[in-house]
C-alpha cells in the first residue's frame, strides 16, 4: 500500500488504524552467502540462513563472532561485500538505515540511538516521512502504541530523564510506527530492570504472534532459551549450528565455544591494611548527588556497586578516580590525602579507571593498539622506539588474547577485544582499580577471562571497585556490596550474608542501613 494512502489515513485522524491497513505485516528474511571483511578481519564469512515470519530468532555467539556485523548489514548500517539478502524471496539492496526502514527492517541498538535533549514525543516523530509534523496525530499514535504494550511513557518527558529501559521502549514504538516488520534487538536486556525485561519480552511475543519476525541478539542463555523459537549460533564469522528451543544450556555453550567452561574460584584476597578511605564526602554529578559519611576499603578487596543505572555508582567511581571533585570531605588513598589534587596525582598514586564507554572515554578511535601502548608507556626519550613497542604489543596481544593485529585501529576491534585492550592498557601494579561494567556486552568466556585477570590483580594487592547491572556478577565476585538508589548508598554488606533476592529488594530502595547520614 502506498504512502499516499497512509497519508490519507493520517489526514482523517485514523492513524491508530494504520497498522491494520498497511497490508502484509509478515516478512520472511533470508541471508544467502553474506560475507563482510574489515581489513584482514573476516567478520562474516558465507552466512546463509532463513528467518521465518512470525518467529523469534535468537542469534548467539561470543564477542567478535560476527553477530552485530550481520544484523547491521540487514538493517543498512553496513553494506555487505558479497552475498544476497532476500525479503519474501525478493533480493533487495539495503544501503542505509533509512532504506532498511523502508523495507520494513528496524534495529534497536544496544545503546538506544535517540536525541536526549528532546521530548519523548519529538523523538517518536523523528524519521516520519513527509514535511509537515502533525503533533496531535503523532500523540494519538504514540498513545495507541504504548497502550498496546503496557509501556508507561510520558510523551512530554525529556529523553534525558528516561532510564535505558524506557528509552528502549520508546525506540520500539517509534520503529513499529514506521511500519517495521522485522525487528532486530541487539543485546536488549543489558542495563534494564527485571520488570522492564518482562514488559519487553511480552511485547516481543505479542509482535511475533501478529506475524512480525524478531531477531534477538544476546549472550544470555536464559533470556534466549525462554524467549526464542529457534537459535542460530555463530563462531568466528561462520554459522556454527542451529538449535530449536527448548534446549540444554550445555548444548548451546558447546556450539558457541566448541568446549566446556568452568567458573573461576573466588578466594578472598582481603588484607588488613585500609587502602581507600572516604570521610564526610559530598559530591554532585550532572543528575545526582551522593553523600557518604565514612567508607573504608581494604587492600585486595572487591567491592561491587549494585543498583539501577544512573543512581550514582559511576559518580563514586569517577570521584575515586580523581575525575570528579567532591564538594566536601576527604579522600585518602594509600594514606595520601588526594582530595583536592589533580587527576595526575591519582594516576601516580596507582589509581586506574576503566570506563564503560570504551570508544568514547577509554580508547582513542583512529589510533591502533600499538599506538595506544606507546601512549601508555612512559619513556624518558623524545622519540618512540617503534620496534620495541611493536614487540611489546605482540606480547600483550598474545597475553590478553586480543583478536587483532598491532596495527589494527581500536574502532575495528569487537567490543570484547576493545575491553581486553582497555584492561591491557591499565598499569601494573595498581592500588585501586575502578571498573564500570567489566563484562558488559561480553560473551561468557571473555567475561570469565576478564575476571581471572582481575582476580590475579587482587592477589597482587589491588583493590577493585566495580559497578554492574548483572546481579550474578556482583554476587559472584564481590567481597562486599554497596547498593545505590536515588543518591542513597547502603552500608557495605558482606556478600556472604546476601542472596540475589535480598539484593534485588535493596536495589528497589528498601535499605536496612544507610551510609548517607552525614554530620
Amino acid at each position: 500500500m502506498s504512502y499516499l494512502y497512509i497519508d490519507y489515513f493520517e489526514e482523517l485522524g485514523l492513524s491508530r488504524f494504520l497498522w491494520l491497513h498497511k497490508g502484509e505485516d509478515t516478512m520472511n528474511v533470508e541471508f544467502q552467502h553474506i560475507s563482510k571483511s574489515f581489513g584482514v578481519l573476516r567478520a562474516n564469512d558465507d552466512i546463509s540462513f532463513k528467518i521465518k515470519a512470525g518467529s523469534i530468532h535468537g542469534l548467539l555467539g561470543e564477542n567478535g563472532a560476527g553477530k552485530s556485523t550481520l544484523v547491521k548489514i540487514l538493517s543498512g548500517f553496513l553494506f555487505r561485500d558479497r552475498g544476497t539478502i532476500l525479503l519474501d524471496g525478493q533480493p533487495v539492496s539495503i544501503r542505509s538505515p533509512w532504506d532498511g526502514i523502508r523495507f520494513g527492517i528496524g534495529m534497536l541498538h544496544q545503546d538506544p540511538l535517540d536525541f536526549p535533549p528532546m521530548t519523548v514525543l519529538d523523538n517518536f516523530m523523528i524519521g516520519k516521512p513527509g514535511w509537515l509534523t502533525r503533533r496531535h496525530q503523532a500523540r494519538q499514535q504514540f498513545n495507541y502504541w504504548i497502550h498496546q504494550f503496557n509501556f508507561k511513557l510520558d510523551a512530554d518527558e525529556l529523553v534525558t530523564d528516561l532510564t535505558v529501559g524506557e528509552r528502549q521502549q520508546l525506540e520500539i514504538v517509534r520503529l513499529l510506527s514506521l511500519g517495521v516488520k522485522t525487528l532486530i534487538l541487539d543485546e536488549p536486556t543489558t542495563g534494564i530492570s527485571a520488570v522492564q525485561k518482562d514488559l519487553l519480552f511480552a511485547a516481543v511475543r505479542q509482535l511475533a504472534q501478529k506475524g512480525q519476525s524478531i531477531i534477538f541478539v544476546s549472550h544470555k542463555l536464559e533470556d534466549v532459551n525462554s524467549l526464542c523459537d529457534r537459535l542460530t549460533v555463530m563462531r568466528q564469522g561462520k554459522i556454527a549450528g542451529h538449535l530449536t528451543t527448548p534446549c540444554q544450556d550445555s548444548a548451546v555453550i558447546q556450539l558457541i565455544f566448541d568446549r566446556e567452561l568452568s567458573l573461576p574460584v573466588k578466594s578472598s584476597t582481603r588484607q588488613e591494611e585500609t587502602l581507600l578511605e572516604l570521610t564526610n564526602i559530598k559530591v554532585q554529578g550532572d543528575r545526582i548527588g551522593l553523600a557518604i559519611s565514612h567508607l573504608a576499603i581494604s587492600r585486595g578487596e572487591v567491592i561491587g556497586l549494585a543498583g539501577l543505572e544512573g543512581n550514582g555508582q559511576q559518580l563514586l567511581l569517577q570521584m575515586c578516580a580523581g575525575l570528579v571533585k567532591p564538594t566536601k570531605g576527604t579522600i585518602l588513598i594509600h594514606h595520601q590525602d588526594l582530595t583536592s589534587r589533580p587527576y595526575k596525582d591519582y594516576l601516580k598514586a596507582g589509581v586506574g579507571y576503566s570506563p564503560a564507554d570504551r570508544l568514547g572515554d577509554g580508547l582513542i578511535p583512529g589510533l591502533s593498539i600499538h599506538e595506544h601502548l606507546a601512549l601508555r608507556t612512559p619513556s624518558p626519550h623524545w622519540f618512540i622506539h617503534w620496534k620495541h613497542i611493536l614487540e611489546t604489543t605482540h606480547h600483550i596481544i598474545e597475553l590478553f588474547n586480543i583478536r587483532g593485529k598491532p596495527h589494527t585501529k581500536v574502532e575495528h576491534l569487537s567490543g570484547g577485544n576493545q575491553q581486553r585492550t582497555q584492561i591491557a592498557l591499565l598499569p601494573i601494579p595498581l592500588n585501586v582499580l575502578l571498573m564500570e561494567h567489566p563484562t558488559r556486552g561480553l560473551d561468557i568466556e571473555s567475561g570469565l577471562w576478564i575476571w581471572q585477570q582481575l582476580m590475579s590483580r587482587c592477589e597482587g594487592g589491588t583493590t577493585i571497585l566495580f559497578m554492574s547491572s548483572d546481579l550474578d556478577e556482583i554476587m559472584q565476585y564481590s567481597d562486599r556490596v554497596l547498593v545505590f538508589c536515588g543518591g542513597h548508598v547502603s552500608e557495605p554488606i558482606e556478600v556472604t550474608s546476601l542472596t540475589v533476592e535480598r539484593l534485588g529488594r535493596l536495589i528497589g530502595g528498601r535499605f536496612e542501613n544507610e551510609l548517607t547520614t552525614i554530620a
Partner: protein
Amino acid sequence: MNSLFNQELSHRSSFIGWVAILAALFFTCAIILLSGSSPVAVFHSIIIGAFATPDRFARVFTTLVPLLLCGCGLMFTFTAGLYNLGIEGQIAFGAIAAMVPLQLGQSLPAPFLLLLAIVAGAAGGMLWGLLAGCLNVFGRINEIFAGLGLNFAVDGLALYLVFGPWKRPGVASMSGTEPLPEFLWLPTIGNTDASLISISIAIIALYCTFLILRGSYFGLRLRAVGSNLRASYVLGISSIQQLLSAFAICGGLAGVAGAFQVIGVFHRLIPNISSNLGFLALLVAMLARTKVWVLLPIALFFSVLTVGSLQLPLELSLESSLSGILQGTLVLFILLSRGLNQFFNQRGV
C-alpha cells in the same frame, strides 16, 4: 584475496583523485573560456610567468618558503584537531615583532640583527598563536573565531604602526614603513629574490615536522588529543599542554614566515604583509592531510600558480586572481573526491 580487494580499493581511490584533478582543470578552463580567453594561452602564460627568467623562478621559491613554514605549522594544529584560521594574524604579528629589533638596534652587526629578527618573528608568532590557544582552551572560544578575531586585531595594529609610530617621514602611506637599509636585507642568490637561508630553514622545518609527527611521543599525544580529548585525558595526557603546544608551534613557524616576508621580500612592514599566504597554506595542508612530505610538491605547485599568474594581467589582460580560482577549485574537487571515496567505501560498492 583480501589484499586483492584492498588493492582494488586503493586503485579506485587514486582513480577518483585523478578524476577530481581533471574535473578541476575542466572547470577552470570553462571559466577562462567564459572570460573570453583561451585556456592554452593562460596556462602557457602561467608557465612562462613562473619559469621564463631566473628572477621569476626565484620568486617561486620566495613564495614557497612561507607556504612550507605555515603548512608545517598547520600540520601540528590539524593533528591536534584544530583549524587554526588565525595563521594569517600569526604571520603578521611575527612580521611586526621582527621589525622591532630592526628598528631599534641598527648599530648591531647585520647578521646578528637578522638572526634576532627571525627569532623575534618566531616569538611574536608564538605569542599570537598562544593567545588564540588560550582563548580556545580557557575561554572556550572556537579556535576558528578566536583566530579570525585576532587576525583583524593584528591588521589594525599593522595599520596603526604603518601610519603612526613607524610611518615614513613626511609620507604615511599604504605602501608601508620606510624601507630597511640594504645591509639588513636577507642575502639572496645573485640578483634574484630567493634566499638560500630562508629555503634551508623551510626545508629543515619540514624535516623536523616529519620526524616529530611520525616518531615522537609529542606527535603521538597530539594525535591522541586530536582524535579523542576525553579518552586522552583519562589515559593521563594533559590535553591543555598539547593543544597550547600545537598553537605555539604553528604560530612560531608562521612568525618565522612573517619575519622572512619583512627581511627577505618586502624589506619593510606593509599592511597585509602575509599576502594571504597563510590561507593558501591552509589549502596546502588540507590537501596534504597527514602526509608531511606531500606538503613540498603541493606547496611548490601552488607557488608556481601564484607567481605565474602575476603575468596574466600584463600578457592577456586577465585578472591574476585566476590562479586563486584554479587553486580553490582544485582543493574543493579533491576534498569532494575524498568525500565520495569515503561514501563508496562505506557502501562497499
